[in-house]
């Protein structure tokens, strides 16, 4: 079986980890927002904005890591806008989120057209290169798959640990989780629900933007329209699939990316020549929906997700 053979190649798993990386950033970002009680449907647009901002910064001459920071800052700005409207003003998180996605996407395209009016093919930057971690990268199969990636991929994996640690082992994480479960209790402790939620949305949006930037600065080396192509929505599904837990979300992202890498490879086998390529391209979206069906009954939704908190109101 050709498909089984594919599963045992290092290049397949390396591709899966690479495809998973932007999803890991953005899923962590969405997870932080939702854990604090705010659904952030701006994710798709924020990823577009991050992808452009990081790439544009590097294209204009800054260092790669500065570009990552620029992307993060742009994401946080959109997060500030989102959270100002949804947290103190308590406006519909659905409407504001979709509005932010439209605003971020259209202003990105506008900026792109202004910055590069006369290009037919988008210019390239010197993107992040794979860095082979000494010794570890020599492990057969696992080494080339896990330890010969670009620095941003390592950062994504490290962040999963950091976010788990902060969420479950620090007072800050407790406050964030409580803001999403029982905001009245947080307020009773003398903490500001508004500040916690706004902070969480800003940090989360920053991570989403870095997820977008991974596409233009690590996976590819230039910016295209339609580049994010629904990845943001898939990350929202991954948060549910991961039951709002960073570790499970990481697993979900890798599983999802593995299927995505697999469909690309199966397209090139004898099976792929008989099946229309659109069927393969549909798979990631269908898979996300199936995952939601499987997980939705068991999911531990944060109790105050999408519930605005107005102090003094009971």
């Amino acid at each position, binding site marked *: 079986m050709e498909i089984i053979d594919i599963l045992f190649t290092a290049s397949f798993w390396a591709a899966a980890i690479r495809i998973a990386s932007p999803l890991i950033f953005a899923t962590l970002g969405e997870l932080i927002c939702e854990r604090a009680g705010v*659904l952030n*449907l701006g994710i798709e647009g924020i990823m577009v904005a991050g992808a452009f901002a990081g790439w544009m910064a590097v294209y204009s001459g800054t260092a790669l890591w500065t570009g990552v920071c620029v992307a993060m800052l742009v994401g946080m700005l959109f997060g500030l*806008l989102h959270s100002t*409207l949804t947290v*103190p*003003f*308590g*406006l*519909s998180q*659905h*409407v*504001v989120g*979709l*509005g*932010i996605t*439209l*605003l971020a*996407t*259209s*202003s990105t*395209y*506008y900026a792109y*057209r*202004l910055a590069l009016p006369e290009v037919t093919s988008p210019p390239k930057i010197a993107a992040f290169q794979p860095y082979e971690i000494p010794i570890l990268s020599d492990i057969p199969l696992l080494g080339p798959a896990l330890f010969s990636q670009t620095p941003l991929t390592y950062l994504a994996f490290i962040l999963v640990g950091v976010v788990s640690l902060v969420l479950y082992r620090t007072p800050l994480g407790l406050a964030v989780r409580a803001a999403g479960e029982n905001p009245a209790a947080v307020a009773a402790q003398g903490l500001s629900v508004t500040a916690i939620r706004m902070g969480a949305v800003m940090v989360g949006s920053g991570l989403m933007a870095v997820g977008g930037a991974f596409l233009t600065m690590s996976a590819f080396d230039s910016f295209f329209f339609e580049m994010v*192509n*629904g990845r943001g*929505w*898939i990350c*929202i*599904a991954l948060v*549910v699939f991961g039951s709002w837990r960073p570790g499970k979300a990481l697993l979900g992202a890798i599983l999802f990316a593995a299927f995505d890498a697999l469909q690309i490879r199966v397209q090139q086998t004898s099976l792929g020549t008989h099946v*229309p390529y*659109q*069927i393969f*391209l*549909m798979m990631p*979206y*269908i898979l*996300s*929906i199936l995952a*939601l*069906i499987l997980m*939705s*009954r068991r999911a531990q939704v944060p109790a105050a997700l999408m519930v605005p908190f*107005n*102090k*003094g109101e009971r």
Partner: protein
Amino acid sequence: MRLEPIKKPTLARKLTPPAIALTTTIVIASLLAMVAGANPFNVIGLILKGSFGSTFAILETLNRATPLIFTGLAVAVAFRAKFWNIGAEAQLYAGALMTVLLGTGTLPWPSMAILPTIIIASILAGAIVLLVPALLKTRFGVDEVVTTLLFNFIFLLFISMLLEGVLKDPMGMGWPKSARLIPEARLPRIVDGLRLHWGFGLAIFSAVCIWIIQTRSTLGYEMRAVGLNKEAAAFAGIPVNIVILKTALLSGGLAALAGFSEVAGLKGSLTLDLSPGFGYTGIIVAMLALLNPLGVVLAALFVAGIFVGADSMSRAADVPTYLADIMLATALLLMVLAILLTRFRVVRE
């Protein structure tokens, strides 16, 4: 800060925030046009001229508003019951697909019955496409926001597959495009010689029907009750899940009419670029209309005016057309805030 409800808002209180929101949108758009090198005081004038400045411009705006009225109604109906249908794009293509499936061959019906049959079949197609996420919500508790969004991608790929496969027009010079509709399946023009088709009439008719359903029928009452408070509605004996399914059928059917009207009234065949995001723009239309079906017509004209006007402005002043989307997103965000501020006062602590 804290929000305090205003018991009896004055007229000034009701009008000032929306007026400020609109002005701010115009100022932001003008500044952005200035960044692009255009004269900022000219932008709004150019947009107005391009959208309502001549008979041709007005007809163009009405044509562009037609699918937006349908998708706007689809969203307004669904959001009223707090059923978050973000998938109007997929349902639109379902309607368009049904239109070319029935309208390209020779039908064994008398020609009088062809258009009504296609309309009903399109409505059913859109309704069924939205029924899937609705059932997933009522049966398995799967959030419809994500499923309807993902369905847009799946359905567009499905259409792409058909257009490159069984539906591909053999005379299409290799383009992924369906065969053309037979003349009996086309929507006629309202006035001979003017480029405006009966899809617009159907859209206005639908808006009135939905308004009647929402204000005068039991279903309308139940949909509002479910939207306001699901638990209370269930307690009052309203079958919440059935109401959600009915809402989905209605919403999906309306969105499908947008696809039908674009194919039968304007394009004559199905291509992958039939809709430049009418389904998503319907959300803006519905929100600007405060989910009121008659308001949807006005909001659709406003949004269509911005799109058509921005197209002609961008040619005249060399400003990227994406300015129209920025204006709409800004108007949407500022307007939802403004409407809140007509009913609440911000109190500092």
